[in-house]
């Protein structure tokens, strides 16, 4: 699937999906992730001091559509979008991230699915990653979601890229 196709995706019903990831087929691991458990007192056995110490870390969840597990990143340790995307590439090693025409696209090497990095901002809106200056993004980002390209149509419209050629 070449990058050019992205700009020529057929007009389909605009679908703004705000649901949690996991709509797609579950990945290869046989067991399903356990259902969200009710909080049991004193379990897992982690000391209060440690519990409280970890709470103060500011980091955001990263979800990939179709993957059963989330990860977390501390946005404050990166200083640019490129660094963040490199880290995501390392974390989700089946994905390759590349820039094309200043639009960041992410592709899963195994199943050929294309993903678009999106984030939920302070107002609860889902935006495309990369539109605002980095520091502003760090301030306002509450969680990240690598959304399947097909579902990303209709997200907050992006400002036209300076480097876009024709089209």
């Amino acid at each position: 699937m070449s990058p050019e196709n992205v700009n020529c995706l057929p007009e389909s019903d605009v679908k703004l999906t705000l649901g949690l990831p996991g709509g797609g087929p579950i990945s290869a691991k046989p067991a399903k992730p356990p259902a969200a458990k009710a909080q049991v007192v004193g379990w897992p056995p982690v000391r209060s001091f440690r519990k409280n110490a970890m709470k103060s870390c500011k980091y955001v969840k990263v979800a990939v559509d179709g993957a059963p597990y989330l990860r977390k990143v501390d946005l404050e340790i990166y200083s640019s979008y490129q660094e963040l995307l490199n880290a995501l590439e390392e974390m989700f090693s089946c994905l390759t991230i590349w820039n094309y025409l200043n639009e960041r696209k992410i592709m899963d090497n195994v199943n050929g699915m294309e993903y678009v990095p999106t984030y939920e901002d302070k107002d609860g809106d889902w935006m495309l990653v990369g539109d605002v200056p980095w520091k502003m993004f760090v301030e306002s980002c509450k969680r990240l979601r690598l959304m399947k390209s097909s579902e990303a149509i209709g997200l907050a419209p992006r400002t036209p890229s300076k480097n876009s050629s024709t089209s």
Partner: protein
Amino acid sequence: MIMESKRKKESPSSPESTQFPDEVLERVLAFLTSHKDRSSVSLVCKDWYNAERWSRTHVFIGNCYSVSPEILARRFPNIRSVTLKGKPRFSDFNLVPQNWGADIHAWLVAFADKYPFLEELRLKRMTVSDESLEYLAANFQNFKVLSLLSCDGFSTDGLAAIATHCKNLTELDIQENGVEDRSGSWLSCFPESFTSLEVLNFASMSAEVNFDALERLVSRCKSLKVLKVNKSISLEQLQKLLTRAPQLVELGTGSFSQELTTRQYAELESAFNNCKNIHTLSGLWEATALYLPVLYPACANLTFLNLSYTALQGGDLAKLLVHCPRLQRLWVLDTVEDKGLEAVGSYCPLLEELRVFPADPFDEEIIHGVTEEGFVAVSFGCRRLHYVLYFCRQMTNAAVATIVQNCPDFTHFRLCIMNPGQPDYLTNEPMDEAFGAVVKTCTKLQRLSVSGLLTDLTFEYIGKYAKNLETLSVAFAGNSGRGMECVLGGCPKLRKLEIRDCPFGDEALLSGLEKYESMRSLWMSACNVTMNGCRQLARKMPRLNVEVMKEDGSDDSQADKVYVYRTVAGPRRDAPPSVLTL
């Protein structure tokens, strides 16, 4: 002279009973430090018992209610150092009611009378008030070492009293306590004339301390070997401290994130470069990959690295571990994932201890963390591994079998599969065979924590094979009380048994009647034990204290939480209303 004649009066010795005069025997026994050895010595004969008790200077009391201060002082007249542990371990996880007890004050009053030359006090899970700290500071002129781990009840005011009055203090170690952190001014209370400090650990306290006071303190304490600062200390400040104390052997950094200029970065790197003696490193709060390289020059001799408060990714951990070939102990967060653990296996062949803590244990959604693969990778690379604490969300029987095959010398195996009752995720079978493999292969096993879906078979294995097991922790496991009976019947060296949320009832509880006198303690909560069962136990075993903690609104006949321990001090008199002594 008076002491000698007093001794002779107390122990009339016949000529044949000992080859050595008492004084010589005492001198020889003074070299014995292990309290287990000393216990053995004291059992040989009356003369040896007396020589031992006169020569003992350090006493370790694993359960503060097993003995009273009066009994202690009667037996050991010359104590200089006391280690005391109080509350049951599950109090760390909020399972023990407030005001449960374990207050140090009565001990201090007795010590002021009997051991005015007391030098060291190490407390774990005790309640310590400011008043007690002030009392300590005022009554013990020779006081040198104060270590408080997981204690509660005091504030920084109490610490101020210690800093102000303890002129001979060499060690102040405050770890993970419920401290009311009113202000950091306690640190400024060390007088300018005070220079004896060797160990200072205030890493787990939050209030900002006066940096100038800290810097001056570090400068004038030339014997300072251990310095662990709190989050309020910045990288720039750390650099200054390191310059003052290049002789440090253990360092706990403060917050490891700050925007540094190139010059500051170089200075920091240089400071670490001058610290050639550091073998323990911790702190590293909010450390970003960007600044970890400044540590590299100091890592050559590192044996213990505590990254358990640093949300590090696997790749960054790998880059750091390349520089730590001598590492023996490593604590990390599961943010490093299996990739990070593969690096551990690759770069740390001398590793003996690994602890992997969960960054997000209570999150509703599922966060990745480490899996069985990471643990297996470590076991292939680190054949000397003997201590592990591993929090994960999935495990298999096969993986554990491989792990113990690679590392048969485990002494401490603490595996926590975080979802209660979760089976082997590949086969959907219980995790019985995993722990079976552990106890069969690891003959030196002293401590075991089990988790996952477990049937009685696990406990049959434990009872049959774990002959050196001393501590066992069980949660959400077993089919019937038979499991507990197997353990009580089979593990000759068992000292501590803690059980929660298991279907073990009165029959299981009572099967251990004689056993409990050879153990330090038993904890059972949310099991099927009744008040009647507990009363029976209390009646039959007068040298045990059987305490029940009732929960609000529970059935009158149920014994929600039971704590049983042996004691020579009789039932305790300081129990709160929620704790019933039967």
